């Protein structure tokens, strides 16, 4: 129960975004020949954060 709640909090805040990216990469890109290389945690986070702030994100 506690573990599940913690997992949800991590997911909601993006704390586990890199782990999720890794598994997405493993499923979708690892087998491709021309796939882009796996990003490091630091590079991934930079991309992820910049990507989050496109468009209207916050309201009144």
């Amino acid at each position, binding site marked *: 129960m506690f573990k599940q709640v913690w997992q949800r909090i991590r997911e909601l*805040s993006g704390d586990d975004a890199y782990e999720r990216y890794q598994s997405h990469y493993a499923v979708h890109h690892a087998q491709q020949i021309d796939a882009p290389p796996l990003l490091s*945690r630091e590079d991934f986070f930079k991309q992820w*954060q910049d990507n989050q*702030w496109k468009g*209207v*994100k916050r309201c*009144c």
Partner: protein
Amino acid sequence: MTITKKIIWGLLAVLGAYAVSVIALHRGESINALWLITAALCIYAIAYRFYAAWIAAKVLVIDETRATPAERLDNGRDFIPTNKWIVFGHHFAAIAGPGPLVGPTLAAQFGYLPGTLWILVGAVIGGAVQDMVTLFFSMRRNGRSLGQMARDEIGVIGGTAALVGTFLIMIILIAVLGLVVVNAMKHSPWATSTVAATIPIAMIVGVYMRNIRPGRVLEASAIGVALLLFSVLAGGWVDHNATLRVWFDHDGLPLAYAIIVYGFAAAVLPVWLLLAPRDYLSTFMKLGTVLLLAVAIVILRPEIHMPAVTQFTDGTGPIFGGKLFPFVFITIACGAISGFHSLIASGTTPKLLSNERDIRMIGYGGMLLESFVAIMAMIAATVLEPGVFFAINSPAGVVGKEAIDAVAKINSWGFAVTVEQMEQLAKDMGESTLFARTGGAPSLAVGMASIFGNAFGKHLLALWYHFAIMFEAIFILTTLDAGTRVGRFMLQDMLGNFHKKLGETSYMPSVILTSSLVVAGWGYFLYIGVIDPNGGVNILWPLFGIANQMLAAIALSVATGILVKSGKLKYAWITGVPLTWLVIITTTASYQKIFSEDVRVGFFAAANDLSAKLASGVLPPDKASVAPQLIFNQHLDAYLTLFFVVVLWVVVLDMLRMCWRYQNTRGVLPSSETTYIATQL
């Protein structure tokens, strides 16, 4: 439905109806806040279980077997099939801003009843429906934005109107929110130093999660929240330190300039340094405080002291001028229906849904929760003694600058309050004065502090008060940062049509130019608001309300148009009814703001009155010096209101023209809905 379930829902309906009749018919000294909570929860539950479910099944015809854009276009970046609770969290964090806290606080001048009823009815019939159908239509169109949908489905006019409307709302919203923060910090070293401290704290958090421990978002946020709580405590020390406190003790104008400079910096600096970390902190604070407030209200069951309806329904209210109809609807704004939500519901949220059935919980349910936040803000405002509430929220221009005059005026309305009582209250809250602290934040903070103080210890009142101010300021400033940035992107997008280079988001001269223009836009309204002896909120908030309702009307027009085009004319009332109501209130309010003879309502009337006074030389020198600017501003506001109402009518008529053509089998634009693909999830 089984017989037991039928009985349970029947009982819930009876309880809800009883609670509503209690809050509507009660005419005693005070009423328990739990009645408002009960009425709200019963109404939400029934609306969600029956109305929303019916809309989802019969009107929208949700198809659980259909693959969502998140599944079809999954790219691990913006299109990601996501658990519904996570999407709900993101969606709610995005839609819930300071609006539902400020609106009900101001609308409480009519008494607790009118605002509460509109928060409940407006959300169930209007706001939640708008959010849900917009989310649905956007999801069926690969997550297209409201503006794109308006252009694709109705025509170029609607699309352009949505774009321009959004931009102008942003400008006015940021100005009024900036004004709320300025009024909360004015001559309050504690509040000012605490709010100022949130800037370096956000930067520390930003550097931590970018460079020190990349991607460790929760660690960084925990550090940030701890520092924020510490900054509330440290603000108290600053306040008690004779040398330090003068650094943070300022008039409104320097504080407004500081916010303008800050807004510019936030729009130009990289997001990771200020905007993103501040947003994390504000989201945690927001969710935490709302939860805490709900728990405190349920444990404490505070008494509401404000009458159900006050005499100010006649339009003579001190906080803002104008009669109950239409101004209670304009003032409540976001807690009942907010056009702004349609931008979120057609932005990131539709790209995350893993199944169509989730839209009821996320679209409809998300808005119900927002409406509940507005109910809590209403409770926090009305648990104050009405005399105290009016003393805090009435501008000096209405009740007089001196405490003794203000008290006499408020007593003459039949609300008891004394100078000593206000002085004691200010002392308890660690402020020098609480008279004429307009904008809603201070009175909400006093209300929250007294609720928290009763629940968790009275000796900490001043800490709770400044905690509440910090909590409001941090997410007002987040909206200000994010809004300025979005405004900048929109402007760059528009200018890019004329000169390609200006459209590049990383081209520095363009960044500086567009950021300056956006900041100058809201900075102007903020400046005028600060120099206005009536506090400015009384002008800016209705303007914001009108603009936001106009955007909601555009969203509902798009939805109604799509429903008719999909051959669902007989169901088009689900968006048609709230649309009609919004058109009525927005048009009436705009008409009154432009043409009313009452100087506290009509912009031209106010401008003419001030001009006459200036010409005859009856104004004191300090007022005479700012009068020309105020006169100009009243004219500008009148034309802006006119512009909003014209845009509204153009969009509605364009939608009706399209519907007429469709019903008479003339050509209309083809539906841009994507074709069916079965889900594999």
